[in-house]
């Protein structure tokens, strides 16, 4: 392969450092490359086998580390998308068996990803067309339903290490497309009008007095008028409409002076054109409109991008539920779409899952977090006979519930609320700017009126033009644009770094953070403990022990459960399962009463002490399995630190931020992790309440605390911290209580985000300062008649432009690449000639 290949210490696929002892080779054209894990190996092998190794030449960024997936379970989930009742909402039916769907793609990091996905999907039999939009990460795919199914296409994308889910393009997407096309048209017309009107205006400005005859000048004026008409009546229409709406609501917004300025200069110029007297200001009008529209267009597209990312996160379609096939006779379950639920169905709700419909608890005891629905942040205890509200989140242990009310909207409502909240909440500083602007407009109108009255008594012929100048020059655009432009640019920047802002105040608070608290599992570590060793203690074989542990953990979504749940193990029936939060679980398999969990918990069952040679090793944890007779086996589980955790802590310290680690895990592991990362302040074995107390204590000392966490138990702490960041792979309840969600799992991005937030605060201050200075200079100058309207238009436009350009600097804030090589140039096409 080529010289740009990864060096030997890096994973060939994802670029992360190779763990010691990892051996997951992939061979390409007789060359061996090392990958870091099973997941990356499988994906890389798939890419090579399908003849798409060109991807590795083209890519400019490393993809995320691939995860090993349970193919059957995923296929079962994906097959839900093949059901006609699910497809109805997002699939367009063409002639015969032709179907078309819109997909959201996740995991796209560079253009080569698009190339790879398009090529790979096109290779599937029955796929007619696929087209991926680079900027929106949305794809449109067309297939022949008699030859392939949507689930196969989605599976093929999964095989490449990406994920795709359908979305309903007929809702927000289409509204957005229409809006964007409309603003593009408005912007284009204003731009063309501005350029050409300027061409007619400049000769008049530069010509020597008298060298231009009146008829030529009149012709120029009429031509300018012709081209200004569409700009004022089509492009600038939203400003007039906005101003009218503001006046009806008796509220002075930005649109009022803008509309007044445009209207006054246009009418004045119209008058001048017809009467051949005075000056025309068509050039100022068109330029003014163009700059304003350009600013709004940029703002709209950035906001849309972050909204799209949030939409992708919540993965609305299809909401699924786990239903018992024949309750209570059997305990087999099936995954069904929420829309197929009927009253009387019995569902299994795993901890961390959203309750899909309203109903009654049959068995189990747990807590339900209804904060999304009611705002009540304390989880409510739920036992048999209690009511459950759809959209709430089951917190601690599995519940069996009977559906009482259906409505596909129950779950939907909760998520939509989350989205709405993010969009509706304006940052405090933006609210302040709005209020200030409203007073500013009022003051401006009063000043303009006073100037007009004064000049009528002094020199009536100049009164009109000076008033127009005052209106145009003081247009509070610089003020109105200053904050939103900076916030929009920063939000866009953070979205590209993989950080989604779900609460309005997040950016502002992040800039002031003095202390960051990390959770350990799932935050500093991958949160996916892996089974390292199985030590058999009893008479059972290792395979039997594994199968029993797998069956016991099948119902749970706890990270340890995922490590112990082995998809290839034979299925065993488990009865009477009981969850003991923080300890483990108990159940019966074929009449044998078993406990799986912490050694203390298991020891309670049979009363024997653990053989001493199995003391805990650093950084590892131990799960025991036992029955009433004694120990059966010990599972040693290990959780790896995130590759960039150390770098992230270092960078936070460089920013002058204190870092501490609060964990519910045992002291030896926590100390081990803290020492490796250089964290001096850490506390182990904390319950959620303990974490909360710690946080409160810090807050009382005047610290502004950011909390980074991922788990269900972190939710209250996340909610109490001034600003909170949830990991994208974490529990939904954690994301719901967080102000930001970290989608990529790269902790280094947190330091970047704080830098961006600080920079944003600085730029907002600069912008506001500029707007104040500009207006303090310009208003008196205009009021004394020193500024002609065209100078006013120019000054206003440049002022707005300056503010926008200053804000756009945020898009360029430098950040360090994580464990990546410097970007490589694209390989010339001729180099990619290997055969297959």
């Amino acid at each position: 392969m080529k010289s740009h290949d990864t060096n030997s210490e890096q994973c060939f696929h994802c670029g992360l450092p190779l763990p010691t002892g990892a051996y997951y080779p992939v061979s390409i054209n007789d060359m061996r490359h090392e990958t870091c894990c099973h997941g990356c190996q499988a994906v890389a092998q798939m890419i090579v086998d399908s003849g798409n190794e060109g991807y590795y030449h083209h890519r400019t960024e490393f993809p995320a580390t691939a995860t090993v997936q349970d193919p059957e379970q995923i296929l079962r989930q994906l097959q839900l998308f093949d059901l006609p009742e699910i497809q109805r909402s997002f699939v367009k039916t063409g002639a015969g068996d032709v179907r078309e769907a819109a997909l959201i793609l996740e995991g796209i990091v560079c253009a080569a990803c698009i190339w790879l996905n398009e090529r790979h999907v096109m290779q599937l039999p029955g796929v007619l067309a696929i087209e991926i939009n680079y900027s929106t990460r949305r794809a449109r795919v067309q297939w022949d339903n008699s030859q392939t199914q949507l689930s196969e296409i989605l599976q093929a994308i999964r095989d490449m290490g990406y994920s795709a889910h359908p979305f309903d393009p007929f809702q927000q997407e289409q509204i957005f497309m229409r809006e964007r096309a409309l603003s593009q048209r408005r912007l284009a017309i204003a731009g063309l009008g501005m350029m050409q009107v300027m061409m007619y205006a400049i000769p008049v400005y530069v010509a020597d007095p008298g060298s231009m005859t009146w008829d030529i000048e009149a012709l120029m004026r009429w031509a300018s008028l012709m081209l200004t008409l569409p700009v004022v009546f089509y492009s600038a229409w939203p400003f007039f409409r906005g101003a009218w709406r503001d006046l009806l609501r008796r509220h002075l917004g930005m649109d009022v002076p803008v509309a007044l300025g445009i209207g006054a200069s246009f009418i004045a110029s119209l008058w001048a054109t017809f009467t051949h007297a005075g000056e025309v200001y068509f050039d100022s009008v068109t330029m003014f409109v163009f700059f304003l529209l350009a600013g709004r267009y940029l703002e709209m597209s950035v906001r849309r991008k972050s909204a799209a990312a949030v939409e992708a996160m919540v993965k609305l379609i299809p909401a699924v539920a786990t239903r018992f096939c024949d309750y209570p006779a059997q305990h087999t379950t099936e995954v069904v779409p929420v829309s197929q639920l009927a009253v009387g169905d019995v569902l299994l709700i795993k901890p961390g899952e959203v309750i899909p419909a309203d109903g009654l608890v049959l068995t189990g005891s747990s807590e339900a977090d209804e904060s999304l629905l009611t705002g009540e942040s304390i989880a409510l205890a739920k036992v048999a006979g209690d009511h459950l509200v759809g959209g709430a989140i089951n917190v601690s242990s599995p519940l069996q519930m009977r559906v009482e009310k259906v409505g596909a909207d129950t779950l939907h409502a909760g998520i939509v609320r989350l989205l709405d909240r993010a969009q509706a909440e304006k940052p405090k500083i933006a609210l302040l700017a709005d209020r200030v602007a409203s007073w500013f407009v009022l003051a401006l109108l009063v000043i303009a009126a006073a100037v007009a009255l004064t000049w009528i008594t002094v020199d009536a012929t100049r009164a009109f033009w000076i008033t127009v100048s005052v209106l145009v020059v003081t247009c509070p655009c610089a003020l109105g644009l200053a904050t939103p432009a900076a916030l929009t640019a920063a939000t866009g920047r953070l979205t590209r770094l993989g950080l989604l802002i779900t609460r309005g105040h997040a950016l502002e608070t992040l800039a002031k953070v003095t202390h960051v608290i990390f959770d350990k599992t799932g935050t500093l570590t991958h949160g996916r403990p892996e089974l390292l060793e199985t030590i058999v203690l009893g008479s059972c074989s290792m395979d039997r022990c594994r199968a029993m542990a797998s069956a016991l953990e099948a119902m749970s979504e706890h990270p340890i459960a995922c490590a112990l749940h082995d998809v290839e193990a034979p299925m065993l029936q488990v009865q009477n399962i009981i969850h003991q939060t923080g300890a483990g679980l108990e159940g019966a398999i074929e009449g044998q009463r078993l406990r799986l969990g912490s050694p203390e918990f298991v020891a309670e069952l049979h009363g024997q002490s653990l053989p001493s040679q199995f003391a805990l090793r650093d950084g590892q944890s131990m799960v025991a399995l036992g029955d009433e007779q004694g120990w059966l086996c010990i599972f040693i589980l290990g959780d790896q630190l995130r590759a960039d955790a150390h770098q992230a802590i270092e960078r936070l310290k460089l920013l002058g931020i204190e870092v501490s680690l609060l964990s519910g895990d045992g002291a030896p592991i926590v100390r081990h992790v803290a020492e490796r990362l250089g964290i001096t302040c850490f506390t182990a074995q904390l319950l959620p309440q303990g974490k909360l107390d710690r946080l409160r204590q810090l807050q009382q000392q005047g610290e502004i605390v950011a909390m980074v966490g991922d788990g269900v138990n972190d939710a209250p702490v996340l909610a109490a911290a001034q600003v909170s960041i949830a990991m994208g792979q974490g529990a939904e309840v954690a994301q719901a209580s967080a102000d930001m969600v970290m989608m990529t799992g790269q902790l280094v991005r947190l330091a970047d985000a704080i830098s961006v937030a600080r920079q944003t605060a600085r730029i907002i201050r600069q912008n506001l300062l500029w707007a104040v200075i500009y207006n303090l200079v310009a208003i008196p100058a205009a009021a004394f008649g020193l500024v002609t309207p065209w100078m006013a238009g120019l000054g206003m436009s440049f002022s707005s432009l300056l503010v926008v350009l200053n804000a756009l600097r945020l898009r360029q804030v430098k950040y360090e690449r994580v464990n990546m090589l410097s970007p490589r140039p694209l390989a010339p096409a001729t180099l990619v000639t290997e055969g297959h």
Partner: protein
Amino acid sequence: MEILFVLIPVSVVIVLIIGGLFLWAVKSGQFEDMEGPAHRILMDDDTPTQPKRVQ
């Protein structure tokens, strides 16, 4: 200078034509993906894709 009496109206007409072309381009979706095509042209290598797998 009399030529200006022709040229200026002509310029107005040309701007209107360009504006019309622009509106058509927006309508036909040419501004929907502003980044993709720039990358696509570089990515378009000559390696033949594998023949479609037979089911």
